[in-house]
């Protein structure tokens, strides 16, 4: 008797995506699918704490450009009289896979103007022009050992921009590890205090490494790193934050489609995967409770799934 063939988790993931996302995205799905299976669009998040004034020029010579400030200007222009979009608005779930940063995707998900007045951030993130697949050279340390930029999927930045941190805000990053978005929050220069929490001790180690490689001591002192289960945050403190980022665990679509290791579509993790929307909801609730009245919460995932995005938020 033959044993059942083992289907690799990536194939299971793609089958799942094919059935649910083709319904959801229709004719856009083939382009998105191909984009998931090709290399992501990288952004170089500049490290304002490093002594690296030469870097913007170097990057410009390579033909890369900061995408944040032009977008911010456009947003301010669009503010005048333009209606804000539907569920794709920045305050709600922004599935990173769908953003304009996806390589090879002709379909642009517009960066809808935020509901707040401006993207007043000092964040600078360089990308190569559309269709240009050049890679960034590795980051280099300055005289003090701080790296000059952090390479990430450019789309990862959008939730941070949407949060629109204002000077002296108390900010909570509820699922902070491995730390790319945390670093971006610090780049705003506006965090009066930043609480970076993640349930996973091992991933929190990576977060520490990022902080040590990019951020000077005096700024690191304004960050408190914790390892609570985010759902229990109200037991830590509630209603104190101006801004809360809830970047929840999800099916990490790109990773699940490409990597066999540590893949949530593996059969033995089926229960875990099916419980995700509930977990995500609980984390979002905790994040909302952690925000003070008038504060803002941004919920984000790196999945395209409506079950993990719109459904949770609604």
């Amino acid at each position, binding site marked *: 008797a033959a044993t059942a063939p083992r289907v690799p988790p990536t194939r299971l993931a*793609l089958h799942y995506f*094919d059935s649910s996302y*083709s319904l959801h995205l229709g*004719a856009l*799905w*083939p*382009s998105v*699918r*191909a984009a998931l*299976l*090709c*290399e992501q669009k990288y952004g170089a998040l500049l490290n304002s704490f490093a002594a690296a004034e030469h870097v913007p020029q170097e990057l410009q010579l390579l033909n890369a450009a900061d995408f944040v400030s032009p977008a911010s200007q456009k947003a301010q222009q669009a503010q005048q009289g333009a209606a804000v979009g539907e569920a794709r608005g920045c305050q709600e779930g922004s599935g990173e896979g769908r953003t304009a940063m996806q*390589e*090879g*995707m*002709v379909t642009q998900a517009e960066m809808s103007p935020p509901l707040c007045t401006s993207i007043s951030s000092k964040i600078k993130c360089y990308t190569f022009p559309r*269709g240009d*697949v050049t890679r960034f050279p590795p980051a280099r340390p300055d005289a003090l050992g701080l790296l000059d930029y952090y390479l990430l999927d450019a789309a990862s930045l959008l939730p941070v921009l949407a949060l629109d941190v204002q000077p002296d805000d108390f900010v909570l990053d509820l699922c902070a590890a491995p730390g790319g978005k945390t670093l971006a929050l610090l780049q705003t220069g506006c965090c009066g205090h930043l609480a970076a929490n993640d349930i996973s001790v091992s991933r929190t180690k990576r977060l520490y490494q990022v902080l040590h490689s990019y951020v000077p001591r005096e700024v690191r002192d304004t960050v408190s790193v914790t390892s609570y289960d985010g759902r229990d945050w109200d037991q830590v403190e509630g209603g104190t934050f101006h801004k809360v980022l809830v970047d929840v665990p999800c099916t990490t679509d790109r990773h699940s489609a490409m990597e066999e290791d540590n893949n949530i579509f593996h059969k033995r993790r089926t229960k875990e995967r099916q419980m995700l929307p509930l977990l995500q909801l609980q984390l979002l609730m905790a994040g909302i409770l952690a925000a003070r009245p008038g504060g803002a919460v941004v919920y984000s995932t790196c999945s395209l799934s409506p079950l993990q995005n719109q459904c949770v938020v609604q």
Partner: protein
Amino acid sequence: MAALWLRGAGRALRAGCSLPAAPGPCSRRGCGAAAALRTMGFSPEQARRLLALQPRLGPEHREAAATQLLLLGLSPEAAVALLERSPALLRLPAERLRERAEELRRLGLDGGRLQRALSRCPQLFHVPRKRLEAAVRLLRERCLFTAGQLREVLGTCPTVLLEEHRTLHHQFQYAYFRMGVRQKAMVDARLFQMPFAELRNRHIFLERRGLYETPHKGQTQTSNPKLKDIVQLSEKDFLASVACSTPEEYEVFKKLLAREEEEKEEEDVDALYTEDDGDDDDDFDSDESKTAQE
């Protein structure tokens, strides 16, 4: 069919080459050569063009080569054009040209197909016989094309005889195993007309878009696009009707894929230095090593 074309040339040759030469400027040596060519059926202009090729070559070479081409059934104009494109043919002994045509005819390339194949790929004359035979063996014994299918393939894609064997084999295996396509479809689609790299680009683009799936074992029906549409359509039409995508998307995809393949190759080379493995060829049989290498 060659007999038809012999009409002009043969009659003149039999007559001992004594038609009057046309009036016009020519060197002492050229006059006789031009006359000979004219009796074979070339116009004064065509004769002049032929004489301009490899001028230091003796006239017998020129005439012999031209004769062979005419015997093959090429028109005088086609013969001149071919020689202009590949003057190196003039250096081959006429016997070689004749033999090669014979060999190709035996393989099933005949009449118009032979003319077309030779006109388009004059290198077919130059390729060593052993290579030709190895290519045919590959197609018949490894790829299991029938004799009829082989004739069809040679007629539509004569360049298979010139292709690097390894690449040819890989292209076949790719279509067979990765794309799940069988010999008949490969022949109908004229698979080998498309460079292997381009086939991979188009197929993988479809695959990643979710429009092409490798059939499972035993699966006979698929909703995959036909190989014919993938291979025969222009890039523009392929993108519009099969891939449902844009040139821009495809360009970016090709760049990304090229880089992936480059990096995969580097990895494979590294792996070679660490393992002792033989080839990873899937094949019907696995006696790759028995194939004669030239």
